């Protein structure tokens, strides 16, 4: 029998090792698996490379993982926000490595890894400093840079609904990076607000098929990063 449901957040973290590369879904707060990140802090893995669009807000979720000193390198498109205080401090102290990737190229590199293709040529970043050191080549009327697939050992993603085969649906724009990150990791762990019976998700409406998912944990009431930031501001 296939049963990808895992009883606890702690149990879900067991495959993670020091030095792993980890995809983390989300765009700002939307779609970020905050509870999985907190479980990762408890788990204790160090020297991680984190692939995430941003670099964390306030002092919870990814910011808390950064603050705990577990992250060696961030790969992201926009590691700056009015609340990215922890990353700012680490970066300015030279305590963390940063690879900035254009957002669409980041998404496409992740998807290429998930689709099992090799490097691909992309026009984005040609003629900019982000193309420095990359192979540049002309096809037809355009110049392209060669971009490499970005695969992870583990993906931590946030879903709305899951079943025991690992089929997933998402909520509104919280979908963002989750489906492609789920494809592009050796071991994909999803937190889901609801676990439903097999067959309860319409097969036409499955966004991420279970083949891409290894473990599912229920988090019925995920933390709202926005609410937490508001609360932190209150006197």
């Amino acid at each position, binding site marked *: 029998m296939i049963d990808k449901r895992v009883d606890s957040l702690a149990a879900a973290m067991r495959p993670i090792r020091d030095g792993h590369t980890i995809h983390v879904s989300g765009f*700002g707060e939307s779609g970020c698996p905050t509870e999985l990140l907190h479980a990762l802090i408890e788990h204790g893995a160090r020297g991680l490379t984190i692939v995430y669009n941003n670099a964390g807000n306030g002092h919870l979720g990814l910011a808390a993982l950064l603050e705990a000193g577990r992250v060696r390198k961030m790969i992201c*498109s*926009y590691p700056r926000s009015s609340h990215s205080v922890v990353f700012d401090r680490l970066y300015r102290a030279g305590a963390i490595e940063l690879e900035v990737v254009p957002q669409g190229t980041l998404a496409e590199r992740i998807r290429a890894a998930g689709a099992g293709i090799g490097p691909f040529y992309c026009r*984005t970043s040609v003629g900019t400093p982000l193309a420095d050191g990359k192979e540049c080549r002309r096809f037809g009327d355009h110049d392209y840079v060669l971009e490499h697939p970005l695969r992870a050992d583990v993906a931590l993603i946030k879903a709305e609904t899951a079943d025991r085969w690992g089929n997933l649906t998402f909520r509104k*724009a919280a979908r963002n990076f989750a489906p492609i990150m789920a494809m592009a990791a050796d071991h994909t762990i999803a937190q889901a607000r609801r676990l439903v019976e097999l067959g309860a998700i319409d097969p036409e409406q499955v966004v991420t098929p279970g083949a891409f998912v290894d473990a599912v944990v229920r988090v019925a009431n995920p933390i*709202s990063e926005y609410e937490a930031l508001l609360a932190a501001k209150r006197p």
Partner: protein
Amino acid sequence: MSLTRDQMAWRMAQDIADGAYVNLGIGLPELVGNHLPPGREIVLHSENGILGMGPEPAATERDYDLINAGKKPVTLLPGGAYFHHADSFAIVRGGRLDLCVLGAFQVAAIGDLANWSTGAPDAIPAVGGAMDIAVGARRCVVLTEHTTRDGKPKLVERCTYPLTAPGVVRRVYTDLAVVDIDAGGFVVVELAPGIGFEAVAARTGGPIRRGDGCGIIALPG
């Protein structure tokens, strides 16, 4: 008199065709969404996986799973759709985004755009989706003040800041003028009411000329 930010956004919005698929950059370009001409159906794209973005919701209706690229709560119009990030940038690079409206630190007379980094040594580099969108959109225009806060030209001969993309900008909407970019450099096609061509040229750092039939920006009553 130079235009207000809302007047700049309004002027830009008048040029968006009925049925256009449009991405509005973070900051000043976001204001364009408040001034879309009535009677036109314009589909706003947000790189985090939304087509058909609607206006900001009432405070009680905010949903942080439905935010724009600037991380602000938005709404979804009937006919809107959600999709993942790779599909979202497929729309951008795949030729299905008719227009992007971006902010800028500098725009060069050859269409180069610099809008992601001032190159300051202590700045944390952060590019977001700007490079993908500038290269991918079928038409790329800029909405920005004509000069920096300390009066330096933003329309320049060559960008001194790191580029976002070379040769992409077709038109710039500023607080002083509407400026096209062609093989000869900047061309003023409309002036803000009360602003003379010479005043614009004096605040511009690259080759600029007055376009044939250059008019006055007609602001709403």
